[in-house]
């Protein structure tokens, strides 16, 4: 009886304590938000990989130490719900001060809810003072010129990013040493296929379940696209009427529809053969597997290699009970007797940032948000972010750390041909994969299927792109007139003048492209 009463009292006491604690926290937050001298900034992102949140926490602590009146809160939202979460919060007026753009959160529907930072990006980032980047325009401190935040529709910049990515082949160093007696990865396609043979022989000899490559419908196309795009370098450059560099995939499709290349080209045969050979090193039915299945095979030691992006590195390393290293796709070299003639050089890579942070219009503290954005994209902050998160640097002069060094884009070589396995047309190609891989493979049937399916898929994709471009041209047409009128009212406003000139330039350039595409589609439609 006494014991029961004692427990009841304890329960009530704990409940009261929890209630008081919650009330205190709520009151403290309300007081802070109502304190005119205290600013609370919130930023949202979907980067839940590895130690990304800890890296952000470190930057937040540094910023708060510099600005004691500012408190920063990080909101990490799972990618699966991020687009819907972001859209409802942004359009509903309840978004945080800074929101990571991308993953369908962007474009003409969303950007009007964000503040343009176009003017700011031409001025130096004050947090680079005292470094070699002092005095350099903020835009030019980024390895890719701030590409991720640029909106081609409104011609404005809406954000700055600290995320960048390249795909690499991850490998199990311990297993490689066990199989081959050494730890150097393959550098060419010939060395890669030789290693795959060694792995199969090892599995057969030891009875262990080990495959050369972990594959899934996400990971496999990464590797295949890389290899296929190298095979298309020469053909895609010859199709370019202006400069001897590869055309983009839209012009590549238009050339096919106009009978300027066919599936009988050695380049296409080479690309398909490389895809087939890589697919043979993966588990049967790998296209039915998800990303996690491939990752599971790799970290369990059941596959020696796996292709994935750099952002996965910290997660993979933390899960793998063995030493992990990476290497660039083992593409054939121009001297390769079987595949080299289609290439001009190894595939060059370029730094590409993504997921820029934009400042929302509903932010009560846009200046503070901009200041925080400049802080996290300074050279010093990016260096710290890179060290903790394992992400690639996006700022000029920042050094990659540890394993990340092997993810740095290698700009040596020739630009790859069009990559299209992730496009609508690419999906048509991948839907026929059962004819290319496995025991029932029939390459002739695969090519017949492509001949049947490709023209409609390419036409649909090019036409869809043209329709989207036409919508953009219509919207920008009226926006250009608006800027012209604003400029008439403020003839001395140099920023408006620059914006107007740029908008007209891009509009006319894009209009010419749209009419060229339409003409090529009409010409193709007349062909047998």
């Amino acid at each position: 009886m006494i014991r029961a009463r004692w427990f009841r009292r304890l329960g009530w006491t704990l409940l009261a304590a929890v209630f008081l604690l919650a009330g205190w926290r709520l009151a403290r937050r309300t007081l802070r938000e109502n304190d005119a001298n205290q600013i609370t900034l919130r930023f949202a992102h979907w980067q839940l990989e590895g130690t990304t949140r800890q890296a952000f926490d470190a930057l937040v602590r540094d910023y708060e130490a510099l600005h004691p009146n500012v408190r920063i809160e990080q909101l990490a939202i799972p990618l699966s719900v991020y687009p819907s979460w972001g859209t409802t919060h942004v359009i509903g007026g309840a978004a945080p001060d800074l929101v990571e753009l991308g993953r369908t959160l962007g474009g003409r529907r969303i950007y009007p809810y964000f503040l343009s930072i176009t003017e700011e990006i031409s001025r130096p980032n004050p947090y680079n003072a005292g470094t070699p980047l002092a005095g350099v325009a903020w835009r030019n401190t980024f390895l890719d010129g701030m590409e991720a935040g640029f909106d081609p529709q409104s011609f404005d910049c809406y954000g700055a990013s600290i995320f960048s990515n390249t795909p690499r082949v991850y490998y199990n160093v311990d297993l490689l040493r066990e199989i081959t007696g050494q730890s150097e990865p393959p550098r060419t396609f010939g060395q890669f296929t030789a290693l795959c043979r060694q792995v199969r022989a090892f599995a057969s000899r030891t009875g262990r379940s080990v495959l050369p490559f972990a594959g899934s419908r996400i990971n496999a196309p990464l590797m295949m696209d890389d290899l296929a795009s190298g095979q298309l370098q020469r053909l895609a450059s010859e199709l370019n009427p202006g400069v001897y560099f590869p055309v983009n995939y839209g012009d590549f499709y238009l050339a096919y529809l106009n009978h300027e290349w066919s599936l009988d080209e050695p380049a296409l045969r080479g690309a398909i053969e490389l895809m087939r050979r890589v697919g043979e090193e993966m588990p049967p039915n790998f296209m039915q597997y998800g990303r996690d299945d491939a990752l599971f095979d790799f970290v369990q030691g059941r596959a020696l290699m796996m292709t994935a992006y750099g952002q996965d590195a910290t997660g993979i390393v933390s899960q793998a009970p063995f030493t992990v290293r990476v290497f660039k796709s083992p593409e054939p070299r121009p001297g390769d007797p079987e595949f080299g003639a289609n290439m001009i050089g190894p595939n060059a890579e370029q730094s590409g940032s993504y997921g820029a942070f934009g400042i929302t219009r509903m932010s009560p503290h846009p200046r503070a948000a901009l200041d925080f954005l400049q802080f996290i994209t300074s050279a010093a902050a990016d260096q710290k972010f890179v060290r903790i998160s394992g992400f690639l640097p996006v700022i000029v002069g920042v050094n990659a750390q540890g394993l990340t060094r092997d993810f740095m884009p290698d700009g040596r070589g020739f630009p790859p041909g069009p990559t299209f396995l992730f496009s609508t047309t690419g999906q048509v190609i991948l839907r026929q994969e059962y004819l290319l891989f496995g025991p029932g493979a029939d390459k002739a049937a695969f090519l017949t299927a492509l001949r049947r399916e490709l023209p409609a898929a390419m036409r649909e994709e090019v036409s869809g792109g043209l329709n989207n471009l036409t919508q953009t041209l219509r919207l920008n047409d009226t926006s250009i007139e608006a800027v012209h009128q604003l400029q008439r009212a403020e003839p001395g406003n140099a920023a408006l003048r620059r914006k107007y000139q740029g908008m007209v330039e891009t509009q006319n350039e894009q209009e010419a492209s749209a009419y060229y595409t339409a003409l090529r589609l009409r010409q193709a439609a007349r062909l047998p």
Partner: protein
Amino acid sequence: MAAAAGPRAGWKELSLLNANEARDLFAAATEADPASREARLGAAISLLSVQPRTDGNIATATQLLEALRAESPNDEEGIGATYYLARIQQLHSSAPDRPAAVAAYRELLAAHPGNHYAEMAAPKLAVLLLYDDVPRDEWERRVAEIETLIPRLTATEAVRDTRLVLAGALIRLRRDHARAYPLVTACLEANLVTRLPHLNALLLQAAESARQLGNTPAAITYYRRFLGEFPRDIRADEVHRRLETLEQKPRP
């Protein structure tokens, strides 16, 4: 409150792609000052971007523009109305009328030389005439028409974009580097190209055209300028190689 803001608030919203808000602001401004031709022009133009896009809105915009033009065809709003009627025929209508748009642009250029909207019409006319499936001699006649038009233009944007539309068509449709090259380099030398992605493409184009035309010093200059402006471009490594080859070649 919206009426007090006048047409400027409407233009501000439209510049941010907020066409529906702009339409409401222009309507309020027109109600407050029915004589404001600027507000009526804004009301018509915002209707072209109001979402959802409907044929009814395009028809209403056409009526508003025709009324503006009928009242006073030669003031800024009247000429602007003529230009946007041509834009509707070319771009905004769900059933574009290419010959009508071409005729309207030609008329604008003839009737209002030097006017902002007439100059805006020049690159639009070039696009419509050149990206068309016509016999070779007819295409050449059209090229000649645009070549004649260019020296008469005065606005920086019109000169630049008409030259570049013509250069683009010569390259894309005829692989004609000899005639395209001077058009591109005239814009580059006068620093008329302001958008970086466009500058990137045009510097390479100029270098490649110069290389194909055997003008090695110019090719070297444009390749060097490309590398200076875009040192981390994915094509930079190959451009370095081409530059080395050109620099080793004996100069003519």
